[in-house]
């Protein structure tokens, strides 16, 4: 039952906000809808924790501990982002970068975007999964080009074309999947239901499945931002409004990776080899290294953190590729930590860029002097994302690296190199932004930094203490992923 609330609220919200237009209280309404979604998601989560995995709507929706934790995460970050975007968008409007029309577009498609992601997470039908991924892409295209600047248009165009092509390939993969499945499950609706596929995965035809996986990996991988399919990501993150960047790298990437993982489970079952795992490890490693070296040469702060998202997605993909209880656990943990931390960072960065009036890092100096909260938020967030204890990101990196050390020692030098370079580059660029002399003005509005510190607080807590039920939840999910 809750599931319909979870999916319904955002869609209703989207439509409502589209009609309501940008009255004074539109941002609050947006936040309200997100809150409701969060409540519904919490409710759903509670149900799943109590009763375990469940099929809803005669098999159209399937909730297990793997996707329910992503649902919860998505709803939560969506809510905090809505909170953050409230003053942020106000300030943007005062700066004259946005008008009512665009804000209306922003609010409604924000809700629809969230809805689409939730649908992608909860559906049991690989086809619907694809459809909702595509829907998410389309809505975000509008969000990315919100400013209508040449740069933002270009970014959106690249985003659209590349992800469109990717997603089309994913569709081909899905078709191949169906092609393999219908011989066993017979044609008709059931042949694309993940639960059914999962039941018969050992009988599926390996040769078809491996082709299917290639298409699915390339397809959804484009949205995950795995190198060398990542080219759209930095542009889209850098040119879109900051709340959008936050949800893009905080949520959308996760959802895409979720899709990949669902497919991987099937393929592993069908082939019995760890081909899928190896492919993912390769992609992951390459992304981590390439991203690290690209970070080094960034001058635009949002672009830099976009690359860092690529790096972390690569790390997660690598972890999932290794498979095994510990690695999967670490991967899931890292997913959570990354989306919390990265969105927090984007919040802080957003206000920083507003107060400086530029995204160029040379223009942002000595935040601690003028806006201490922003400064500390950015500093702590950066430290957290760089994997420095006691923040949670370190916990997952700890597990990933130590596991890699005895599973695949050959990979560790690359990981080290990448982590080192990334640390040097990011920290070396952030430190002068936060510390030192400055002539930046203070922000006109009180910045909305509660989300930042809520996120960082959670991340810190997870680094020192992971609540038992949360841990069990991760363990179950990790077990589902197998590998």
């Amino acid at each position, binding site marked *: 039952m809750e599931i319909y609330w979870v999916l319904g609220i955002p869609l209703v919200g989207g439509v409502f906000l589209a009609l309501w237009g940008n009255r004074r209280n539109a941002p609050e309404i947006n936040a309200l809808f997100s809150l409701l979604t969060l409540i519904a998601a919490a409710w759903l989560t509670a149900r799943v924790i109590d009763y375990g995995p469940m099929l809803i709507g005669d098999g159209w929706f399937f909730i297990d501990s793997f996707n329910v934790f992503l649902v919860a995460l998505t709803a939560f970050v969506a809510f905090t982002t809505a909170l953050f975007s409230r003053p942020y968008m106000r300030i943007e409007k005062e700066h004259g970068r946005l008008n009512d029309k665009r804000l209306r577009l922003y609010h409604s498609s924000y809700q629809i975007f969230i809805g689409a992601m939730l649908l992608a997470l909860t559906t049991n039908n690989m086809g619907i999964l694809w459809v909702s991924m595509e829907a998410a892409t389309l809505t975000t295209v509008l969000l990315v080009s919100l400013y209508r600047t040449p740069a933002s248009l270009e970014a959106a*165009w*690249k985003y659209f*074309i*590349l992800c469109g092509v*990717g997603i089309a*390939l994913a569709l081909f993969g899905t078709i191949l999947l169906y092609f393999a499945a219908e011989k066993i499950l017979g044609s008709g609706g059931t042949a694309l239901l993940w639960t059914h596929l999962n039941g018969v995965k050992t009988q599926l035809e390996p*040769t078809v499945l*491996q*082709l299917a*996986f*290639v*298409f699915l*990996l*390339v397809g959804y991988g*484009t949205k995950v931002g795995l190198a*060398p*399919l990542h*080219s*759209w990501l*930095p542009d889209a993150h850098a040119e879109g409004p900051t709340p959008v960047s936050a949800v893009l790298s905080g949520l959308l990437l996760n959802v895409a990776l979720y899709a990949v993982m669902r497919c991987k489970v099937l393929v592993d079952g069908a082939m019995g080899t760890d081909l899928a795992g190896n*492919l993912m490890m390769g992609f992951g490693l390459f992304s981590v290294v*390439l991203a690290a*070296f*690209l970070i*080094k*040469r960034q001058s635009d702060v949002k672009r830099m953190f976009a690359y860092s998202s690529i790096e972390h997605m690569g790390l997660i993909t690598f972890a999932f590729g290794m498979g*095994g209880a*510990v690695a999967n656990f670490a991967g899931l943990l890292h997913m959570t930590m990354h989306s919390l931390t990265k969105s927090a960072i984007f919040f802080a960065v957003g206000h920083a860029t507003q107060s400086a009036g530029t995204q160029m890092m040379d223009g942002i100096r000595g935040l*601690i002097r003028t806006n201490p909260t922003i400064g500390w938020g950015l500093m702590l967030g950066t*430290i957290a994302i*760089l994997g*420095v*204890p*006691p923040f949670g990101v*370190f*916990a997952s990196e*700890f*597990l990933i*690296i*130590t*596991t*890699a*050390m*005895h599973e695949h020692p050959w990979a*560790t030098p690359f990981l*080290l190199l990448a982590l*080192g*370079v990334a*640390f*040097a580059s990011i*920290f*070396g660029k952030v*430190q002068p932004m936060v*510390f*030192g002399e400055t002539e930046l003005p203070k922000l006109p509005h009180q910045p909305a930094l509660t989300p930042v510190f809520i996120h960082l607080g959670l991340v810190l807590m997870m680094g*020192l*203490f*992971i609540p038992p039920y949360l*841990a069990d939840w991760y*363990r179950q999910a990790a077990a589902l992923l197998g590998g």
Partner: protein
Amino acid sequence: MLELLPLDWAWAIVLYWLILAGTGLLMQSRPRLITGLVFPLGAVGALAISAVGLMGLIQPASHFILPIGLPDLPFHLRLDALSAFFLVLLGGAAFGVTIYAVGYLRGMERGSLALLAMWYHLFLAGMTMVLLADDAYAFMVAWEVMALSSYFLVTTDHDVPEIRRAGFLYLLIAHVGAVSLLLCFGVLQGGAVANASAYTFDYMRNAEMTPFWASAAFLLALFGFGAKAGLVPLHVWLPEAHPAAPSPVSALMSGVMLKTAIYGLLRVTFDLLNAQQGWWGTLALALGLITALYGVIFAAVQSDMKRLLAWSSIENIGIIIAGFGLALIFYADGKGALAALAMTALLYHSLNHAFFKGLLFVGTGTVLHATGARNLGRLGGLIRYLPWTAWLTLIGALSIAGLPPLNGFVSDWLLLQAFLLTPGLSQPYLNMVIPVAAATVALASALAAYVMVKFYGVIFLGQPREPGLVHARATKWPERFGMIWLASGCVLLGVFPTQVIGWISPAVLLLTGQSMVNDGNWLTLAPVDADRASYAPLVFLAVVLVVLLLTFIIVRKIYHGRVRRADPWDCGYPEQTARMQDSAEGFGQPVRQIFESFMRVERETPDPFDRKPQYRGDSRDRLWLLLYAPIARLTDWISDQAGRVQHGRIQWYLIYSFATLIFLLVFVTR
């Protein structure tokens, strides 16, 4: 009622420090309360922790599990003799320094004072946790908390670009080191997948390892801890970061934080890896000696007092690591007793260094406050204006120069004795070469004396080089008390070595399986065998004092004590100005001339018509150019190449996707 083990006290104190950190932050509006209340309380904690350490030395190892950390891996804590010894070190030094800080930090800008209070106590807590941690995760967390808090302490006044640069360099190298430690633990934890209990040190102790992986683990550990300890060539951050921090923090970093690296090295090599192979020791010995020499040479040519002390810390770390290598060689060769001797020497030296380096750093802090100058060229003659500081610092300077009967000499002496015993080794090469290596230690300590004469003489003796110095005024009582504490530590450690070694022996026993035999009685120190060598500092001191008094009395009794004051004679040169004294550069000049090959010297010679000529000779670390600059260039080059990938043209991006797709299709259907 339950009786509390030392361990319970220990982590209770950690908690207490965390709370203090919180209060420090909250008291932003009341700076007087921070200096008047928070820091004294912190000092009490330090005293308590050293008491806990003393208890822990005599009691058997105790375990405790904190219910935080990773789900399957809560924080395992353990207090054994080794941790206890380093707790004593930490507490002892930190107490003096913190008391000192009470006076030092008065009148600091309130916002940064609150932050400082927070990070300071976090720093103390982090170091303590490092010593208590008994599993890889807890250790890493504590380790990085320590690094992070010290980073924020270093960048306290971050308006200065050099300080920002120093902080960045520090944190970067610390992080790289930490990652290699992470790998080290990954290796140690061996093949055990999927059960987090494999991350506990208990598991690692009993893990079976092939020599190859054991060596890998050792090298990783040496790299990681070496990066923290400032082992050449990973030392570059140290001379930048330690001077940058406020003096009490510099004192803690040099005196205590570096020792946590030594602790980790001992823990991993002796406790977890059980010191299997001799060549590890040889490597460590060589690196240690190089570090010692390198450090002291650069200390001799510095002209910034805190930077000079930082370099001298590198030297001392080098000596300690050399002792570590020696102990390792002996141990791997099955010479337990000798290993115990070397181990005692290195632990003793760590303890000593904590005290005298702390003392010297706080001394410079006072000078800095009184004069506002860090450059030796602007100081001089302060013994007249800051008598307390001057005399107390003199004790520190003499001890670090390794002069009897103070503490620096004891550890040097023990170390040299250990070197002398190497002919007992089975490898012919080692027992020929190592006594020669001892000469390096001797050279290093002799140079240390040179450095200290320069340091002390230029700051406190002679005539003031700046007219303003005559207004330098005396220090506040907390500062004095802190310095007295540290100085008396130096003296006592020097005069009662047998008792101190008695305390240390449980730690030595834990590491080497034997404790150092003391063949002497309560006042003579005689390692291994009284006929070999012995040293009785107390007698020594007594005799010196007696002769001193006798001479004094006789001279005064038999002859008169008349004194006439006059201008200095100085070979009858008519006019004397302060600028005629040796500048710091001048004093370092012989060393620079002899060891010029190590450094890149940038000279500024004044032109002949300059009324107020200034000579500046700046000696730079050549390793920076040889090692770090190329790495930086390489990464830049690679990232430029990577930059070409992000071409900007959508067709290219499509081609990437296309190529990937085709490649994968070929790959899977091959």
